[in-house]
């Protein structure tokens, strides 16, 4: 086993970058949809426009970034090698991109054929990914809560997409309307299971790493994913009983359980951040702090929606905005601006004797600009949940945010290519 492990399995540059460069295009599309059809998006989260925008962000932007990062991180951080990374990433990326676009079209036009196409492509993307990485992920010699978190997240992704395929078949008319109740489970497994467990697994590593904080307590890193898994499983089982089906019990249990988990995670992370040894307040730190504040608010809203303190009308939209833009997009933007310069630097390091510093590939000023734009975007979207005309501003800001991400990533790649093409002699 020791002989198989080499740490040298970082994939070719094109493997993660293709996902990272596609992600902002979906954010741009979601932003334009919000700007053009904002009133419909913010009328209810069940309008075709709202569902299309939601899935452009989740199955589009978020999933692209998360899978791109997985391809990079699995071999390096988890010791889980991916066989044929270029081939697998090519297939997954193609199916994911086409599937994400097809899904948005399917919602907007309520078109059965597009639902079939989207379900097939997204199902294929996830099946290929899971088949490709699971052997390595289950056999890795690596220890620690992160590996278990990644395993749980992959399982939850399979459940999420499985439920999503079933829901697409309801919309295309192949399954009866009563199956629509599965959408609660789809959301819970997608946001709480897949995205939530992945966020936690990444946090265990990077929060201490970038900010030089103490580690999360071991009991917490083991207990939280187990608790999330237990909540999701119990909720799903309750849903499957005759009494639970449509009775609202499963929904309440899932909401309260996930709200508690989210609040505990946000509290633990903010506490660690306060104890950081590194006193630099950089953009990445701001993105994480914003995400944890949004998560705290989202947990409160989720709990309120379940306990009946607030009628469940209307809370869905601000919850969605807080979770997607506030929590997950914030963390992903902050992380991308660390990961992409790092990956480019590693590849540059092999080619030139003195590469520029990672911070020169995307400057702190650029990152800070994006942080401010993203914050304005989040506030505009939250305002739009109360006052729909603000959706125009929220949409334009989201599109601008996607555009700026693309520009910044392209800038980093340009800097990389400029250095790479200088002959080594000229630099020495």
């Amino acid at each position, binding site marked *: 086993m*020791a*002989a198989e*492990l*080499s*740490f*040298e399995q970082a994939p070719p540059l094109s493997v993660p970058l293709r996902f990272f460069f596609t992600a902002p295009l979906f954010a741009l599309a979601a932003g334009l949809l919000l700007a053009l059809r904002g009133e419909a998006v913010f009328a209810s989260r069940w309008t075709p426009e709202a569902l299309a925008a939601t899935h452009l962000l989740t199955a589009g932007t978020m999933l692209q970034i998360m899978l791109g990062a997985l391809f990079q991180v699995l071999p*390096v*951080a*988890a*010791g889980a090698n991916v066989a044929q990374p270029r081939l697998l990433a090519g297939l997954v990326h193609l199916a994911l991109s086409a599937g994400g676009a097809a899904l948005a079209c399917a919602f907007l036009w309520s078109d059965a054929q597009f639902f079939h196409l989207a379900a097939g492509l997204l199902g294929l993307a996830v099946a290929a990914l899971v088949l490709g990485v699971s052997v390595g992920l289950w056999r890795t*010699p*690596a*220890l*620690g809560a*992160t*590996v278990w978190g990644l395993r749980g997240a992959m399982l939850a992704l399979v459940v999420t997409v499985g439920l999503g395929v079933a829901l697409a078949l309801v919309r295309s008319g192949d399954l009866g309307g009563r199956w629509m109740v599965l959408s609660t489970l789809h959301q819970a497994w997608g946001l709480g299971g897949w995205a939530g467990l992945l966020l936690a697994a990444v946090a265990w*590593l990077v929060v201490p*790493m*970038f900010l*030089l904080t103490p580690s999360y307590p071991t009991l917490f890193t083991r207990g939280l994913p187990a608790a999330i898994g237990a909540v999701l499983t119990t909720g799903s089982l309750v849903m499957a009983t005759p009494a639970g089906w449509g009775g609202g019990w499963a929904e309440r249990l899932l909401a309260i359980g996930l709200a508690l988990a989210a609040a505990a995670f946000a509290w633990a992370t903010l506490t660690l951040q306060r104890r950081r*040894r*590194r*006193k*630099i307040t950089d953009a990445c730190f701001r993105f994480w702090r914003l995400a944890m504040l949004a998560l705290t608010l989202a947990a409160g809203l989720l709990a309120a929606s379940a306990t009946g303190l607030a009628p469940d009308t209307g809370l869905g939209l601000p919850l969605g905005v807080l979770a997607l833009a506030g929590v997950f997009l914030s963390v992903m933007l902050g992380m991308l601006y*660390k990961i992409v310069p*790092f990956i480019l*630097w590693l590849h540059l*390091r092999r080619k030139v004797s003195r590469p520029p*510093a*990672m*911070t*020169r590939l995307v400057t702190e000023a650029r990152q800070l600009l994006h942080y401010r734009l993203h914050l304005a975007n989040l506030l505009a979207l939250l305002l739009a949940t109360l006052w729909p005309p603000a959706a125009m501003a929220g949409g334009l800001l989201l599109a601008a945010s996607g555009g700026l991400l693309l520009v910044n990533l392209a800038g980093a790649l340009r800097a990389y290519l400029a250095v790479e093409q200088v002959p080594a002699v000229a630099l020495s």
Partner: protein
Amino acid sequence: MDRLTHFMQHHHGHCDEAFATAEADAHRGDWSACAASLARFRADLLGHLAVEEERIFPAFEASTGNTAGPTRVMRAEHEEMRELLGWLDEALAGRNAIAFADAAETLLILLQQHNMKEENILYPMCDRILGGDEVAFNQLMGEVEQALMEVAHG
């Protein structure tokens, strides 16, 4: 059995502490303090790298018969860290806060991802593989602890 993991992980934290002080000193523009804190960080880091290269890696390589695997990558990353220490020296000599911040951020990320691989994968493997021979393992750990103790007090 996680004696090596535990001890080396603890020493990573010790190096982090010294790093954070040097970075903060440079950020404040307090160059004389930075000279002292950077010297301390350099001693801690170089001591750590040396202990791995001279004691821990050879023991791992001898036990597994694998010199081309994880330890080779770790040694190459150590070389990069030594280079980046040089960047920090240049920035300190030129009293250039921006260059210092650039070099510090680059070194930090390199160092942290390196430490993560050691703490999650390589050290636990060392504990498992080397811990089998109790006498030899005790002697190795004695040497490791002694060497890093001398750095800390030197």
